[in-house]
């Protein structure tokens, strides 16, 4: 296999290439800006010639997510990608997949809403992504890349987490992360699962009954409420386990910080620059960047709240993640929100001004 390669790629392309290299078996999607490069890249790359991976343009988002449901039922590494309006269409399927406890990877390149909205970058799907999205008590594991490198790295990570917990993993991106090019180091190709591996590692997969076991049934339907509640209790225990094991975050210049920004994805990149600007003005500012949005880094934020004067949640939304920041902080220090909406990207100096007016002066 090839050595690690350095390339200049768009985030969407890096994710697509990394998915091939992660040993994905199938991609099912329907085009929508600003993530169409994912399928475009896969179609051009013809991964069926490289690894046997299938790439299929479905007739709709609903069809695509149900193809994922089918592929995942067979123990395959399958994925889809879309953007906000398309994600709303997929929610029924995602709820079924979560209920049936199947692994899959979903990319959402968030655009400003509600409705068809705009095609510019936004973070207004945080609630939908982290609190369920479809019906029923379920959670997705949500990864928030903030660079092209992470778009590449999170493809194999997402598949690994999905199979470890038999749970859908959502990668929450946007048009800025998807459209920009950065240097990216690609991992080596890893093989797709063999039939023997699927039978051994995912014994629940529906791939033809063998005489040594009962029939495998994949369903999210339990008409007996007691059975359904048992299943709910099991799911909740799994989510607590995920919270215990998989919470990921990064801190930047937090050691001596008097104020903290909390921001993910594109906002985290803007906020990193805001930290530099603030420090040049003598404000001791740090950044906590959640890498997983579910599970949310509640504990590290709670600990920072013990020793800072204020926390600003920076999001390209009306203020969604700020609710989780407030739950983590309680009444220890003031928590404020700053964000732009509708596809407008705030400038780093704007973030510093918001910090000064809402927390330092306020």
């Amino acid at each position: 296999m090839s050595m690690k390669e350095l390339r200049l790629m768009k985030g969407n392309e890096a994710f697509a290439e990394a998915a091939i290299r992660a040993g994905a078996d199938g991609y099912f999607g329907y085009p929508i800006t600003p993530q169409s490069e994912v399928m475009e890249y896969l179609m051009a790359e013809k991964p069926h010639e490289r690894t046997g991976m299938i790439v299929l343009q479905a007739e709709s988002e609903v069809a695509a997510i149900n193809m994922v449901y089918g592929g995942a039922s067979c123990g395959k590494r399958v994925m889809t990608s879309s953007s906000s309006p398309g994600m709303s269409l997929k929610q029924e399927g995602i709820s079924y997949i979560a209920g049936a406890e199947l692994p899959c990877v979903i990319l959402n390149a968030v655009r400003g809403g509600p409705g068809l909205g705009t095609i510019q970058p936004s973070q207004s799907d945080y609630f939908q992504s982290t609190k369920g999205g479809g019906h029923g008590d379920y959670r997705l594991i949500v990864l928030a890349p903030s660079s092209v490198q992470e778009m590449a790295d999170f493809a194999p990570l997402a598949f690994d987490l999905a199979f470890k917990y038999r749970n859908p993993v959502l990668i929450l991106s946007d048009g800025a992360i998807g459209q920009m090019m950065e240097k990216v180091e690609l991992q080596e190709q890893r093989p797709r699962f063999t039939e023997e591996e699927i039978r051994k590692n995912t014994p629940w997969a529906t791939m033809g009954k063998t005489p040594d076991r009962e029939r495998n049934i994949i369903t999210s339907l339990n008409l007996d409420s007691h059975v359904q509640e048992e299943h709910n209790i099991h799911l909740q225990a799994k989510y607590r386990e995920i919270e215990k094991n998989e919470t990921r975050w990064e801190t930047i210049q937090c050691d001596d910080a008097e104020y903290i920004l909390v921001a993910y994805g594109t906002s985290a990149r803007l906020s990193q620059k805001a930290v530099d600007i603030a420090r040049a003005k003598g404000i001791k500012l740090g950044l906590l960047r959640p890498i997983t949005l579910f599970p949310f880094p509640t504990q590290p934020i709670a600990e920072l709240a013990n020793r800072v004067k204020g926390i600003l949640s920076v999001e390209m939304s009306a203020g969604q993640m700020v609710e989780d920041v407030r739950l983590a902080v309680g009444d220890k220090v003031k928590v404020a929100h700053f964000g732009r909406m509708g596809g407008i990207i705030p400038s780093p100096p704007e973030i510093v001004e918001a910090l000064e007016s809402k927390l330092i002066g306020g």
Partner: protein
Amino acid sequence: MTEEILIAGFGGQGVLSMGKILAYSGVMGNKEVSWMPSYGPEMRGGTANVTVIISDERISSPILSSYDTAIILNQQSMDKFEASVKPGGILIYDPNGITRHPSRKDINIYSIDAADEAAKMGMTKVFNMIILGGFLKIKPVVQPEFIHKGLEKSLPARHHNMIPENETAIEKGKDIIKPVFLLN
């Protein structure tokens, strides 16, 4: 070293590809780089711009509101971005089609007749490489050897026979860029 560059002009002038060649050259020179294009409705309005950052350090925000250097290739972009050059920074523009010339007195301003020169050379397609050459003369952020590798990496193989013309255009740009207003 961190150089934050804006390139702005019409769609079709090679704004995005010039940015890509510059960014790829940075990668070849072992720098950190980012390339952030305008996309969607902005592009459909006929203007195209790209922010390129080349740095020795991890790049914080790929999206900026002020720049060390702005390379401006049409009047709309001049109107929009002249004010975005950091004080003490650099504005490079092609006067072709410019009706209101830049007037700031707190930045260094250079002009480059790249459209005229490309027409004289009989190769309008290398317009953006003449501009790139002019920029590299003023700000040699990447070494010429890496520009060559950047061209190889960013041009499809079927266009590699065009690399010498592109390099000639870069050299031409270095020759013809001229100061309009310089800070002391």
